């Protein structure tokens, strides 16, 4: 049993680096317009007291700079947005403000005094509260009990319940201290979490993408609550990528892009379009690819795919339709957490809809088919997560190759694995896709991220699938491997397959996609021709702002 536990620890440890990798890996820089010249400076509201001032904050992870000379200030009672794409450095910045990390250089000032925030407890003592995107409450306990656990010991439960009721009434939060958490909706649970912060009388409340788990009605209620806090003098730092929300709620927004503060702007005077452009930079559909035949046969068709929220923090899919044609790369752009994982699971067949007629391969209804059947029918899949999803880290490459070929001809005879064929197939993939192995029997975990990614992409392309569905094909891999993978996908499309690529990397999307659709909050936009398409338009869709609303939308 002992060994089992060690294995668990090992697996957990093997998975963890990837999480941080996803967060920290440098992405190739885009051709963006130089921003320093355009950096907008807004006159600070002078009538208020400066609460937090950060200047020249730098944070590096290895040779990747997550925050590069970021300056930021927030005043008492101000609602200030922090806006940016995935990996722009928003989380890194607030983690430093909340004491979870220390800046490598730069100064944080709290009410005019330079401070070193040593940890979250220190931050809370100073008056900084934070509500995380994925908060955690004890489901079996009551609201008051959950709050009591987070507060310093000494307060009686009944006294606390009274305080919760009073505060709840004062701010219109509507939290019943005696309710059991498991009976509450996600929005109500989030209010419990906010209440927990509020009872410690913070002067600054940080909210990390709070609306991603809320319905529109709950979002409106949350904004009312936040406005009341602001009126009573609490400053709110609101992290989001949803442009309309930012414009509705906040007065100023600081925009980060690839670790750099692109500017702090007045959200009343900026349109969603301008904010989108600041967020994603400027890119124009570029012709690095052959033009796809616009009349190619539809190979993969998805029609009105809906999926309820699988877990508390997941995104439901809302009537997603798409058509992938022969010879093209169809990109699904969007910011992480807008339904990418849920859509990928549905396309792989790990999750299957109950009704008929939703997913078709060349007109054949495969809605109810599992992953192995879909593979046999001619679809290849590359999920985002290499370790533990696309590949088993503790197994050899040969076994990992079998993972997606066991249902195909020749791999298994009468239930017995053809060992030689299995090894040969893996070796062929390694040769064809330049996968560098420490030795022949290397475990998947011994490969670098880029090499393993080349392998999991390569093992699918080697089967010449008619449809290839990939998610974040170059996430966290080095530039050389990324280019290799992209040209392999282009080559596959040129041979007449359809490639569906979910990617958060706009540069990648513009580099190789023939058509682009955007996933936002479980909705998929119509696919647009990439040629001539501007990043601004895609950015607006990624931020949930309909492109057709005009420049002042």
């Amino acid at each position, binding site marked *: 049993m002992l060994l089992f536990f060690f294995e668990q620890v*090992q697996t957990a440890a093997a998975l963890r680096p990837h999480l*941080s990798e996803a967060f920290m890996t440098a992405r190739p820089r885009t051709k963006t317009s130089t921003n320093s010249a355009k950096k907008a400076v807004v006159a600070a509201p002078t009538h208020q007291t400066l609460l937090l001032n950060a200047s020249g904050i730098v944070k590096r992870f290895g040779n990747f700079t997550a925050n590069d000379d970021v300056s930021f200030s927030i005043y008492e009672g101000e609602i200030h947005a922090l806006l940016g794409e995935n990996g722009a450095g928003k989380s890194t910045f607030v983690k430093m403000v909340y004491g979870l990390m220390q800046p490598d250089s730069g100064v944080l000032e709290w009410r005019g005094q330079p401070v070193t925030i040593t940890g979250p407890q220190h931050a809370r003592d100073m008056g900084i509260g934070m509500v995380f995107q994925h908060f955690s409450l004890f489901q079996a306990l009551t609201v008051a009990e959950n709050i009591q656990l987070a507060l310093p010991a000494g307060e009686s439960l009944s006294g606390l319940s009274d305080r919760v009721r009073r505060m709840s009434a004062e701010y219109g939060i509507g939290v019943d201290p005696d309710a059991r958490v498991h009976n509450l909706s996600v929005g109500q649970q989030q209010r419990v979490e906010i209440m927990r912060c509020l009872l410690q009388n913070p002067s600054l409340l940080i909210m990390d993408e709070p609306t991603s788990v809320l319905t529109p009605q709950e979002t409106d209620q949350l904004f009312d609550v936040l406005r009341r806090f602001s009126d009573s003098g609490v400053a709110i730092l609101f992290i989001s990528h949803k442009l309309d929300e930012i414009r509705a709620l906040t007065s100023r927004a600081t925009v980060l892009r690839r670790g750099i503060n692109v500017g702090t702007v007045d959200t009343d005077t900026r349109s969603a379009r301008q904010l989108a452009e600041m967020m994603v930079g400027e890119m124009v559909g570029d012709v690095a690819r052959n033009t796809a035949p616009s009349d190619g046969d539809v190979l993969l068709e998805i029609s009105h795919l809906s999926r309820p929220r699988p877990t508390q923090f997941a995104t439901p899919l809302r009537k997603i339709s798409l058509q992938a044609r022969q010879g093209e790369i169809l990109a699904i752009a969007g910011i992480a957490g807008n339904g990418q994982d849920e859509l990928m699971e549905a396309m792989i067949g790990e999750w299957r809809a109950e009704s008929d007629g939703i997913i078709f391969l060349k007109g054949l209804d495969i809605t109810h088919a599992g992953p192995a059947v879909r593979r046999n029918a001619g679809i290849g899949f590359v999920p985002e997560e290499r370790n533990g999803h696309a590949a088993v880290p503790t197994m050899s490459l040969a076994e990992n190759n079998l*993972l997606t070929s066991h249902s195909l001809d020749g791999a298994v005879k009468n239930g*017995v694995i053809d060992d030689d064929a299995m090894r040969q197939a893996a070796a062929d993939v390694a040769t064809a896709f330049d996968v560098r192995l420490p030795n022949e029997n290397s475990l998947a975990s011994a490969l670098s991220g880029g090499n393993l990614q080349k392998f999991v992409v390569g093992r699918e392309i080697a089967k010449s699938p008619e449809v290839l569905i990939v998610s974040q094909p170059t996430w966290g891999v080095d530039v050389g491997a990324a280019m290799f993978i992209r040209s392999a996908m282009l080559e596959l499309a040129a041979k007449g397959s359809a490639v569906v690529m979910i990617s958060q990397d706009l540069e990648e999307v513009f580099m190789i996609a023939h058509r682009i659709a955007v996933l936002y909050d479980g909705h998929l936009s119509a696919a647009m021709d990439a040629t001539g398409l501007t990043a601004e338009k895609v950015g607006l869709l990624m931020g949930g702002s309909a492109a057709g609303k005009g420049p002042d939308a």
Partner: protein
Amino acid sequence: MISLIPRKDIPLALTVMTPIIAIALTLIVGAIIFATLGYDPLRALYQFFIAPVSRPDQIGDLFVKACPLIIIASGLVFCYRANVWNIGAEGQLILGAVFAGYVALTFPGLPGWAMMPLMVIAGMIGGLLWAMIPALLKTRFNTNEILVSLMLTYVAALLIDWIVRGPWRDPMSFGFPLTKMYEDAALISRIELPGIGYLGQLHWGVVGALLLAVGAWFVLSRMLVGFQVKVMGAAPRAGRFAGFSPSFVTVMVLGISGAAAGVAGMVEVSANIGQLQPDISFGYGFTAIIVAFLARLNPLAVIGAGLVVALAELGGDSAQIALGMPKVVTGVFKGILLFMLLAGETFNRFHVEIRLPKSAATKVSAGQN
């Protein structure tokens, strides 16, 4: 902070030396304990390791003792490889014995060629059905198979107790809780080796156990079902991605291990006891868990691990008889042996790194390069 870091390459010499070092350490620690308690350490160690295997017939008995352990552990390996925690092999063993006993007692007139296969099949079905309870509860209601399978062991123990005291009790047993003796056709015969004769109690069930372990190895390492089991255990999400069904694997591995335990129960009764009684197992279902892990969940290594554990059991008995050593002391010694073997195994696969928290932080961030 102390961390165990997985070794990237494990030198062959280390793998060979690990069990030797572990046994040497066991001998040293054991000798110290025996000496402290006033026993002659050399005589005590002799009783543990040499005396139980000093005659050919004792070697036969060693295999007989290891037989149920090897059968059960060969099945448990499937469960544990799949991260399914069947702790209830003891109960599945009892149900296997009861089902096989039903065949033996209800159809005493069957000829040997029909009786044995029927009893084996009945034993498999008994263990399998008992294991299906945790399997279905887990796949249907997501219950914890550890608790369910363990609790069912006690249910099984009470069940056989009731059966042999009540409905199946031999009327001629003078009130003892025993069934009728099985007919000869329902008994597993001893092996008569040409030129040597009988080797202790060595019986044909042992041959079956060895074949079963080899078969389990083949299924696990060469067949697609074995691959499914390993993938599900190592990375369940990758298993679903491959198109394997988690429920199917759960049901299958519990079925395999239940059937194996059921066969062990049938063999134990037919080879060694000859009738059903309240106690038919000396905790083989639990000891086999240790055997499975000692074998690093490799069915071929289960044979060796089963023999080592059986030797420790017999050695404990022999030390109790020859030296009057209390049972708790022999138990402690057995514990030390297993501890050393498992610890050695761990240090074989991991090396220890002791770091101060401060430098740990620098290492972690340096690792991000």
